[in-house]
């Protein structure tokens, strides 16, 4: 009969808490930069400049049809062959940004296209400039429309980020792996890690639901 031993885990909770904090930081930073990439990607895709569209299409398709693990191996181990080498943590960040940027491009593009043409025409008829139309007419409803996909993408990104521990970047999963190497209470450690990730996901979805109520609380139109 297996004897559970959670002692090593409880003795090192501070270490895991620190790992969790690193995971939050890493995924938030990746999401923030990834959003910039996504907006650029979406603008390029809707720009009508064909070569630009092809490049973005290729980027999106390659990323969405290959595993994140291979992407991070390629970036961390493969790119130095081209003279581009970076630290474990930088490679992790870059891989996450590249990954979430591809999914985000599609989300943002859908958001822009979700605004009915009539809204933009009403803005033009009221003599608003293109920038004013984007700022006052398009932005908020578009954000509201993509908010659910964007926030679940963030949570998915945070869960995926556990994979960066395989290139020894520092995060929650890496903290767990460290502990595992020292104490061998493997099942207990990964059980607690899983619970911690779950709590992070739960915390963020609660936060996002609250923010949604604060920022997008207007009755939906047709």
């Amino acid at each position, binding site marked *: 009969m297996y004897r559970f031993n959670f002692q090593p885990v409880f003795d090192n909770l501070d270490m895991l808490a620190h790992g969790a904090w690193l995971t939050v930081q890493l995924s938030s930073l990746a999401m923030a930069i990834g959003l910039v990439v996504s907006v650029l990607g979406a603008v390029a895709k809707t720009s009508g400049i064909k070569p630009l569209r092809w490049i973005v299409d290729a980027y999106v398709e390659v990323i969405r049809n290959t595993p994140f693990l291979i992407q991070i191996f390629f970036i961390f181990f493969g790119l130095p062959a081209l003279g581009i080498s970076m630290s474990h943590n930088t490679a992790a960040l870059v891989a996450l940004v590249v990954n979430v940027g591809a999914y985000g491009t599609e989300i943002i593009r859908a958001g822009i296209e979700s605004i*009915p043409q*009539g*809204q933009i*025409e*009403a803005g*033009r*008829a*009221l*003599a*608003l*400039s293109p920038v*004013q139309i984007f700022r*006052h*007419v398009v932005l*908020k*409803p578009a954000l*509201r429309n993509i908010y659910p996909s964007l926030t679940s993408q963030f949570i998915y990104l945070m869960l995926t980020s556990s994979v960066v521990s395989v290139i020894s970047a520092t995060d929650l999963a890496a903290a767990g792996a460290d502990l595992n190497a020292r104490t061998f209470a493997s099942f207990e450690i990964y059980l607690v890690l899983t619970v911690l990730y779950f709590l992070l996901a739960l915390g963020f979805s609660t936060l996002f639901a609250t923010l949604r109520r604060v920022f*997008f609380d*207007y*009755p*939906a*139109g*047709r």
Partner: protein
Amino acid sequence: MTEHAITMRAVNKYYGAYHALVDIDLTVDRGERIVICGPSGSGKSTLIRTINQLETIQSGQIVVDGIALSGAENVAKVRRDVGMVFQSFNLFPHMTVLENCMLAPMKTRKVPRAEAEATARQYLERVRIPEQADKYPAQLSGGQQQRVAIARALCMKPRIMLFDEPTSALDPEMVKEVLDTMIDLARDGMTMLCVTHEMDFARAVADRVIFMDRGAIVEENAPEPFFTNPCNERLQAFLGQIA
């Protein structure tokens, strides 16, 4: 030079190869009320949308309120002077009724907030829904939304109002409240171009009724002779259909 509200000369508009407006000549006097009718796809929307440059034209000339429609600067000027009401209301869903009415005056005419709000409330009063000021569009009936859209356009203090089938998306019981609002506006001397098939409205307020077919104006007349003595045979058929 500014005795006419709108002058269109030899205007042609194409969508790709499709000839949507064919040699349109039209002069609208100040305070004149014009109703435009015609079969679906005949170019009615396209015609009034060229007046505020929601559609660009390929040849001809349009002068609105003494301003020739060319160059971004002039277009912005014209749009500030021309209000438009759409078939599908196009209210901004994320703003209250009041905010919908205040946005454009504050952003394009630089009207101070307090003044914009006072103006907005005044026009909401005028379209008879002052009590809805703090609601969101989705909380209103279609008729109420369309009246807000009229108020929103009026808040820019336009000299000309364009209506593109303002009642055709409405349930029958709401048509009257919107038409009444438009009749009020006509009585006050607003220059109006209305695309509509509400012939009672045309009889009551129009100075002139225009019939369009296949992108061209094929008949125009005062309401009485227009309805009782139509010359064009397609107009006769059209009037037979909607009667």
